[in-house]
């Protein structure tokens, strides 16, 4: 399955770029015309992944966050990468309510939100080199609608 379109975005780890990244992802995905609910799902999941890169990956220091979006006829794959701290125990990190930063009033729900709004969430991470979160979602409202593409 080859993507019909692809976009790559690189931005500094500033919290003001969280809104920017999720709007870019939603605008890109809009090309295949998913419904409002599905677009909001993508926006929320991207916001979680990018926020994690900024606060956990780079621990609010300066770094580059990369986002890649691959568009298919009725689906999208979005990867968010940081070259920050990395995750020691991925399984534990993905558990609902697990947070390493309760001091920052984090609730430990980011991965749970990503998993419930997207179909698949994959995490690859290495301590000291960084983390890539790849999320996949099929838009059921789009299926069969874009045969002309």
């Amino acid at each position: 399955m080859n993507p019909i379109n692809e976009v790559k975005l690189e931005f500094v780890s500033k919290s003001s770029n969280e809104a920017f990244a999720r709007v870019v992802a939603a605008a890109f995905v809009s090309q295949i015309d998913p419904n409002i609910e599905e677009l909001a799902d993508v926006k929320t999941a991207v916001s979680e992944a990018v926020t994690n890169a900024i606060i956990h990956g780079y621990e609010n220091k300066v770094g580059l966050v990369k986002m890649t979006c691959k568009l298919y006829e009725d689906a999208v794959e979005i990867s968010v990468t940081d070259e920050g701290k990395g995750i020691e125990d991925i399984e534990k990190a993905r558990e609902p309510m697990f947070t390493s930063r309760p001091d920052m009033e984090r609730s430990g729900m980011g991965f749970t939100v990503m998993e419930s709004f997207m179909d698949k969430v994959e995490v690859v991470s290495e301590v000291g080199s960084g983390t890539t979160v790849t999320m996949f979602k099929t838009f059921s409202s789009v299926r069969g609608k874009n045969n002309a593409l």
Partner: protein
Amino acid sequence: MNIRLTNRGNTLVAALNGELDHHTADYIRQKLDAEMLKSTTKNVVLDFSKVTFMDSSGIGVIMGRYKNIQKLNGKMSLAGVNERIRRIFEMSGLLKLMSAYDSIDEAINKM
């Protein structure tokens, strides 16, 4: 994101407007904390009817304020929560700690 604060008796009504994420959470946290320290505030209603986006950062802000108000023997409830935001609240167990009402008036009456 901005926030409008109104006092209704000893209940502080905080109407949030815009997108609540990690970037805007700090500002909302500061505004709420400053107001909640005032002796006129016993209970808090958070009005979500004009919140156009929220991610898990919102849960952190609410949980944090909830803990503070509880220490002062006050209560907290929510109003105007849309389907999507409700889903995130449900995931986090937040609705086991506080109720969500359709309107601000209902939230105040049932406080």
